[in-house]
């Protein structure tokens, strides 16, 4: 299958999805991120790698946290960062996505960070750039529809590796609204590529996609059963609109069955870590005692996310 993320020699030129990324590429990103962690700990949190380059944050869908971490990452690499609030600009006046891209290329953009409600929008941009011969311009997917959120997947893998070292003997549970979650999709693909032997999906039937078993995932509807002896628990955010869509009875009901409480956490291994991509709904998918407890690594995830985004940006911009 044509994989527009990699060039002819197999180097990463865009990051569009975890799917199709060879294991050595993922490992290279995680290793490079480890070196950038050290940069973020210095007084001068900056390296000159992307000096003179322009990074455009194109957020067609709101996300303050993801946009901010991409912005910090680009600034720590010495790039110039331009944030475009697309909803309020040309798109609203009827300009097509690719016309917007052409205009920004004419302003000498080097890298686009794209968040879009439509699955596949970053692919469309990457293929367009290839068609017009702009192999010097790179695209990073910051979340597209229900499809993928590859930098979140990578930072989750960084977090797991940081605390657990070895992927090949782990039991990892992903809990919640997997059906609508691009994070879950990216996580499951990355866990498979990195050789995690047991990946579990826990959630109500209405929020789990069909055919999860084809991805090598074990499905559990009973959270107590699913969490047993897990090393890593990845909680997903429950989006309020799911309740309106009648997929769930109520937030309280959801919490009773699928909220991570201290009692349920006790079923996992004693040294299990609890992750969440944020923003958290306390009392809906996670109990505050767990969110603020010693096993939660939710804030370190945010810190690791900056280093991972620095790694991805510097690798694609250099290829």
């Amino acid at each position, binding site marked *: 299958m044509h994989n527009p993320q990699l060039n002819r020699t197999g180097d990463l030129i865009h990051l569009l999805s975890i799917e199709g990324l060879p294991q050595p590429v993922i490992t*290279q990103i995680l290793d*490079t991120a*480890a*070196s950038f962690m*050290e*940069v973020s700990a210095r007084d001068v949190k900056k*390296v*000159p*790698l992307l000096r003179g380059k322009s990074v455009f944050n194109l957020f067609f869908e709101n996300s303050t946290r993801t946009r901010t971490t991409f912005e910090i990452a680009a600034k720590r690499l010495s790039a110039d960062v331009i944030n475009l609030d697309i909803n309020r600009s040309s798109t609203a006046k009827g300009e097509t996505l690719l016309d917007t891209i052409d205009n920004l290329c004419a302003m000498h953009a080097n890298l686009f960070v794209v968040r879009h409600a439509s699955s596949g929008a970053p692919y469309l941009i990457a293929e367009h750039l290839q068609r017009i011969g702009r192999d010097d311009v790179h695209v990073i997917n910051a979340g597209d529809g229900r499809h993928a959120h590859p930098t979140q997947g990578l930072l989750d893998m960084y977090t797991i590796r940081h605390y657990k070292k070895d992927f090949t003997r782990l039991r990892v549970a992903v809990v919640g609204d997997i059906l609508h979650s691009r994070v879950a999709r990216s996580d499951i693909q990355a866990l498979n590529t990195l050789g995690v032997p047991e990946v579990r999906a826990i959630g109500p039937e209405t929020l789990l996609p069909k055919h999860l078993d084809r991805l090598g995932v074990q499905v559990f509807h009973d959270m107590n059963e699913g969490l047993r002896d897990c090393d890593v628990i990845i909680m997903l955010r429950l989006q309020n609109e799911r309740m309106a869509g009648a997929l769930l009875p109520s937030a309280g009901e959801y919490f009773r069955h699928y909220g991570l409480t201290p009692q349920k956490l006790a079923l996992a291994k004693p040294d299990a870590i609890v992750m969440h991509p944020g923003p958290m709904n306390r009392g809906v998918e996670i109990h505050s005692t767990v969110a603020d407890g010693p096993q939660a690594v939710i804030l370190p995830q945010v810190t690791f996310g900056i280093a991972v985004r620095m790694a991805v940006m510097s690798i694609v911009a*250099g290829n």
Partner: protein
Amino acid sequence: MPPLPSPLPDAEFQCRQLADLIRPHLHRRPALIGIFSGGAWIAERLRALLDLPENIGLIDVSFYRDDFAAKGLHPQVKPTVIPFDVEGRHLILVDDVLYTGRTTRAALNELFDYGRPASVALAVLADRGGRELPIGPAYCVWDVTLNAGESLELGRLDDGRLAWRLANA
């Protein structure tokens, strides 16, 4: 410069020679920083030979290289670790081979992002000439001439000893 001797000199013996050159200046309480990977091994040797109490610093200049635009990011970047405050310190930057001087420049730029050292001196086992920047070693034990396309590489043998290898591009 003299031509390349055969066999190549003993790198472990050269480390002892390099330590002898540095020893008269220990009253300045220098801190050692080795450039990955060869320089890091040599700095470890120097620390032991000079009986220095402090851990050495390790520097990977990949994020500061001037050929990033042409070559991209090095596939195996190691974290830079400077376990002491460089502010006001006399630093000795250690590398295996000095050639164009570009790696040294990148290391200097990186070091200065950690603070303002009192001084930085360069210590190398080999100087092969071919400088493209105004950079010179304060301590060097071997001036060597290589043919175009040749390069000297410091490696570690199975028993842990350091040894030179001549590579052809």
